[in-house]
């Protein structure tokens, strides 16, 4: 890498000696972290069977385990998992949708009709060799076929059985709601996400609660499921015991960040939707400039003072000095300051304002005392992110070439690990593509 002089935004790093030390550290990291081919995979001794039906939480969970090195076999009915057809704007790659393509990492595909007794026996043979089953079918479905946790633990006492569904496989609601299938949107709604997004002051329907524009609930459910499975694998490594894990996607986001529960507990009411504003910091928002939006973040009072200096609005300081002035449940007060900021921001192009804030922060880093760090960045679109060279250097977005359908990009696993780097070895998705190989390898016939 070229030796460009790095810009720092921290008082502790603004020192020539420190920067020299850190450029040596970067070289060590490049050596230690970027060569992955000959390194071992952490879960290479783990066989995972993924049985999911139109439920991406199951598919993504299996995908992450495969990135960590597990051998993952997706078991589908002969007609295939309907999840294959789920996609954006009816765009397909080959015959699968975009989400299925993105999550088809390092997997094997076999078809088994679990409704036929003969095929079920083959499935049980596979189960006897497996460490993990991911069941993202209708709660009770596998059990009704005789291949649920209570039957399978008898043939494999070390089996880890992860059940994924909207309301879980236990509690009084589990049975009553077992008929309702899982989707990201309904799980977001049940987790309290849309109730916090949007602006109730706008005209209908723009004032409705709004969905998070990514699969926020399905991905959250998946990372929690992987967490549960890894914990169970550690228990199994120590004791040989397997266990059951239960995920309720309708609960995943709210239990993971906990805000809805803790907030309702202390305020004894729901937080209202407050448009672009935030509940604990101000400004902590996307604000419009002349030619687009920027994200602006001032956490501490000195950061806010820095922003006022950049904008040349020191007159506001007196009324909005402390975080206690700026954060309130009185929305009209939030808007008072919000309008002042919007007025100033609209005078600038995004890049202009971003540059101003950056040079202010760089100066702050070199000051002995004082000087805040008001952070302003452009709200980037995915196509702008694709152009960023930092992600190329880090291999964050991989280009993959399919022999028939051509090139496409998928995001890499985000954690880089020095001993057992997670990796994408292949992308394939053919229904029943590995029938023969798996049947042979595990002696199923």
């Amino acid at each position: 890498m070229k030796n460009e002089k790095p810009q720092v935004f921290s008082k502790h790093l603004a020192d020539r000696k420190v920067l020299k030390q850190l450029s040596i550290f970067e070289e060590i990291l490049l050596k230690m972290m970027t060569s992955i081919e000959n390194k071992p995979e952490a879960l290479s001794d783990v066989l995972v069977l993924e049985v999911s039906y139109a439920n991406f939480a199951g598919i993504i969970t299996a995908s992450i385990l495969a990135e960590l090195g597990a051998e993952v076999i997706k078991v589908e009915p002969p007609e295939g998992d309907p999840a294959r057809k789920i996609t954006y704007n009816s765009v397909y790659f080959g015959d699968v949708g975009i989400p299925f393509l993105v999550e088809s990492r390092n997997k094997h595909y076999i078809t088994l009709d679990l409704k036929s007794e003969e095929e079920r026996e083959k499935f049980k043979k596979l189960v006897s060799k497996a460490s993990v089953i991911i069941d993202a079918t209708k709660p009770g479905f596998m059990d009704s076929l005789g291949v649920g946790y209570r039957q399978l633990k008898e043939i494999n006492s070390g089996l880890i059985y992860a059940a994924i569904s909207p309301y879980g496989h236990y509690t009084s609601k589990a049975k009553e709601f077992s008929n309702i299938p899982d989707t990201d949107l309904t799980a977001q709604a049940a987790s309290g996400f849309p109730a916090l997004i949007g602006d109730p002051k706008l005209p209908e329907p723009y004032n409705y609660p709004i969905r998070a524009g990514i699969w926020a609930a399905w991905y959250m459910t998946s990372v929690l499921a992987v967490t549960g499975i890894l914990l169970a694998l550690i228990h199994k490594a120590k004791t040989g015991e397997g266990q059951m894990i239960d995920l309720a996607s309708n609960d995943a986001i709210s239990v993971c960040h906990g805000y809805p529960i803790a907030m309702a507990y202390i305020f004894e009411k729901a937080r209202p939707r407050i448009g672009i504003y935030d509940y604990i910091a101000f400004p902590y928002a996307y604000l419009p400039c002349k030619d687009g939006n920027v994200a602006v973040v001032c956490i501490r009072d000195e950061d806010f003072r820095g922003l006022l200096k950049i904008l040349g609005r020191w007159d506001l300081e007196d009324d909005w000095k402390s975080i206690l002035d700026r954060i309130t449940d009185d929305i009209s007060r939030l808007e008072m300051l919000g309008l002042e900021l919007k007025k100033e921001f609209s005078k600038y192009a995004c890049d202009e304002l971003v540059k101003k804030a950056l040079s202010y922060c760089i100066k702050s880093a070199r000051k002995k005392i004082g000087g805040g760090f008001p952070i302003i960045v452009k709200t980037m679109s995915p196509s702008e992110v694709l152009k960023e060279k930092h992600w190329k250097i880090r291999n964050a977005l991989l280009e993959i070439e399919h022999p028939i359908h051509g090139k496409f990009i998928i995001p890499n696993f985000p954690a880089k690990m020095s001993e057992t780097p997670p990796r994408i070895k292949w992308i394939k998705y053919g229904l029943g593509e590995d029938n023969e190989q798996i049947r042979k390898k595990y002696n199923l016939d």
Partner: protein
Amino acid sequence: MSEDYFSFVNQLFNSSKIWEKPEVLKGIRVLELTHAIFGPQVGRVLAQFGAEVIKVEEPWDGDLFRTATVWSRYWKHSNIMFHVMHANKYFVAINLKKEKGRELIKKLAKISDVVVENFRAGLAEAWGIGYTQLSKVNPKIIYLSCSGYGQWGPLRFFPSVDLVAQSMAGVATLTGFPGQTYKLPDYYGDFLPGMFGVISVLTALYYREKTGKGQYIDLSQAECLMRVMHNFTYLSITEKEIGCTGNIDPTMSPSGIFKTKDGKFIALAIATDEQFYKLLEAMNKSSSIINNEKFSKIHERLKPENMEELIRIVEEWVKTKSMEEIIELAKKYGFPASPVMDDWEIFNDEWRRERGSIVTVNDEMYGEAVLPGPVVMLHKTPGRIKWLSRPVGYHNKYVFKKLLGLSDEEIKQLEKEGVIGYWDNKPGLKPPIYYDLKNDKIFNY
């Protein structure tokens, strides 16, 4: 099997038995050099499952998040969300800017299994407590560095918080109706990356269990968000952006958030043909719509113009039904639907208490609190919330005496030199004013 499946699973997860069951991470010691949410989330989950997590803070000021309250509201002179993030942990306050402080960190690292830090990239290394330094003291250490953009590459020193990471990853432009832009609420850009941190640490622990080897993990907040986006793949195939789609999940047709007859908001999303036919049955509209080839197959329904037409039909139907009626139909026919739930409804949802996702904790210092439970449910090694957070430096004596074998005199000397310390007299940092500290056996250990 004569026993009902759901009562079988109910028995497995019986909440009254949790405290008799083993903790999977018992004996794992984690040194947490963290602040705000991203880093602490890693320790939070590990502590739920039995790890001994030692949280290191700056004396007097502590973690900035201690005072980051919603609407500046404290609960028993503390931040309720700080309790959520820091239940089951130990609190020491060490001045990292002093050589002797760093020596203490090295001594703790020597007897720890995992180190988690989320300073600005490079800062831990510059302070002499980075991976290259601590792995010399303890070669088996698992060291996780959490940062905005990772530890190498040109953006590495750039500041990051949840909102900035959402902007840099491209998430920022995806939520809202076209022309609007909302952030993902409640710091999704911290909590989701935190879970990837948990996953990578557990993976490294599993590998160490087998081989005895530790490792370094470099985790970028923005890369975690990029991993859960399909937009880059879609863009690389179509050369178009998916963009903002308001309430509609563009992969589900029909889908959206609708207003019911009784004025409530409900989320509906149809993922498969089967679910679509069930919905039509429930709507009593089968014949007219199924025969329309614009709607009968998923790839036709997902075309934006057809989707829009369908959504209008569903919207009109929802207007004629109450929330309860639609949920009953969803249970009966089997299509995805959920009320849009806010904080208060989530908090009062009996199902979540039954699941253990909302728990009542009885804490020695703070008394009763109602908080989120463990993030995932395991039946043999369940997570649990044992105690709430503590004031800055509360466990100094307990940790330094018991784990490092320091004497009272040595501790006093370190206090005098400002190497270790306690809390400033501010809410969020100090104990509740009515708390009897003199008779606290742990504090006065």
